[in-house]
């Protein structure tokens, strides 16, 4: 009995506490931004996570997908982003070519390398907010 219960308890301490706490310690010291969910704070207060989709219902913003498995898919394909450009242009008066440029500038290289170019919706919308006065109330 002693070896059986003993090894079970020791493995609990080692794998169930020591290991996750050690990783937490290292992560919080060395990589705090990633370890805490890549929270974006463009104007001093947190507005969301770089990795988690948030709802944008107003027609002046790019919209995320809501049919995907996780329910919080932060990205849309570049094609989906292009398809939304006329609507946003109508609602804001920003020219379609400027919006297309914005999408292209924010398409990460990694998404092109892996074959299916996509853009992060929150990144796109924060870029709109920072660049165009029509969004000044969101700053």
């Amino acid at each position, binding site marked *: 009995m002693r070896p059986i219960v003993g090894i079970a308890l020791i493995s609990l301490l080692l794998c169930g506490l020591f290991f996750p706490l050690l990783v937490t310690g290292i992560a919080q010291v060395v*990589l705090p931004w990633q370890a805490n969910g890549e929270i974006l704070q463009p104007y001093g207060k947190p507005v969301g996570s770089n*990795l*988690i989709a948030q709802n944008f219902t107003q027609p002046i913003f790019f919209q995320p997908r809501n049919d995907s498995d996780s329910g919080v898919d932060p990205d849309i394909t570049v094609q989906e982003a292009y398809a939304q450009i006329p609507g946003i242009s109508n609602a804001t008066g920003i020219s379609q070519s400027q919006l297309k440029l914005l999408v292209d500038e924010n398409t990460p290289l990694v998404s092109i390398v892996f074959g299916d170019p996509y853009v992060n919706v929150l990144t796109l919308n924060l870029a709109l907010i920072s660049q165009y006065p029509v969004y000044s109330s969101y700053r």
Partner: protein
Amino acid sequence: MITILDAAYVVAILGGSILAAKAIAPYIAKIYTHGPSRLDRFLDPVENGVYRLIGVDVHRGMGWKEYFLSGLLVNLVQMAIAFVILTFQGELPLNPQGFSGVRWDLALNTVISIGTNTNLQHYNGETTLSYLSQMSAIQFLQFTSAATGICMGVAMIRCLLAGSKDLGNFYVDFVRSLTRLLIPFCLVAAVVLVALGVPQSLNGYQTISTVTGASQMILIGPIASLVSIMQLGTNGGGYFGANSAYPFQNPSPVSDVFEICLMLLLPTALIFVFGEMLGPEKKREYRPILVAAYSLFAIDLAIGFIPTTTLGPGMETRFGGFFSAFWTVVTTAVTTGSVNASLYAMHPFVILAAFMGMLIQATPGGKGVGLMYMIMFIIITVFVVGLMSGRTPEYLGMKITARDVKLVMVAFLIHPLVILVPTLVAFASGAAAQIGVSMNASGFTQVLYEFTSAASNNGSDFFGASANTPFWNISTAIVIFVGRYAPIAILLAMGGSMIGRKRSPEVGLKTDSLLFSGVLVASILILVVLTFFPFLAVGPILQYLHGQANFLG
């Protein structure tokens, strides 16, 4: 069909994983042959302290019964500890979200599922489990079940070595699997995962005000540490209900590829470890296993890649159609069972490929146990070839006895038994209809998949939390338990009888040849396809034909 770029990724990922596995194999072999290592200076005192504390004599070897029972009993105590933590998490610390205790049937299903390396999950971790439960119930059992699987595989290898006197000492193998393999490898993997964007925090879920002023909860927690072992240990149980589709578990295509490589690493490495432990004279005997495992895996991939999978509902944009389908085939080939897209989103052929991985369980299968299944198939193949050529069947210079063949056949037949009987019971008893499963080809696929995944200790499923009912929790728990321990016990019983068996220089069948690899692949396909074809035909194959009929109008 897939694009050239996609095919290049497949070759690079599989090739890279095989090379990495080969590179670490000598180190892993030394863990179990007690060869000298630079880590000895630090780890020997720690490990010796543990052995003294629990009263284990390092030098005392075990027979198959003692080795197996030690593993089983240690696992049961570990599951009991985790059961208590889950049930009383409401009263325990590290519960910033204030989740209440887990209901007994779900807790039972969860500890058996995670504790056997299956990780079928009838819950959504992010809305059910406290930080303590995620760490000290889930991650804990993910480590121990992975270590147990490796120990059983290594014990099987020792049975086949010419000079072995026993199977080794379970406690020593278990401790060294944790201290020298799983914990250091997972530590590196976890830090890489954090760098790639996977959170690791105990600060509680963060409520923030979004750009447009809505309130949003950001679900951070001790995620990277869990993901490292769930992929490296081929466990598959996720922090989130959506598993590796949730961005915090798998933030980008880079993390996706990294996690695929983590899954492939140890099952593949153990094939090379087999060669290392056999010694210079017999080292080549690992080759038919590697060739057969990866040929069958290639067949799975080919089936899965026949349809062009394009990004659609149920998939994550960052992975696209191809990496979603690729992951689904890999995760079943190594019985991990993590998913990065909804199985409902997959073409019936991708599901068929997933079934093949789970039914064979050796392509290369779960670490340790996949190797045991491959040895089972080798014994069957050697026997059949012996019958055809009129020679006494031999493997590694040993005569294969009638008892060996009977045992491997029983081990093989457990799989169809624990998959097909419960599938029929689920339909006949109305339990399938109760959770909204339709009486058609896709409904049959879903139920067959649930029990196949349970029996092969895979863990991917269609149902998720919707199967959190007493029938599904208890029936799958039984299937998981029998599917895990019964074949291991039977194969170790066969292995145990090989210790001390007379070896003669090989004269008959050359089992390290390419020809034998081909025969091995053919006999595995014939055995598995003959056994399961009728059931696959009324599941995914019929679904595909329906789709074609609808398409043609």
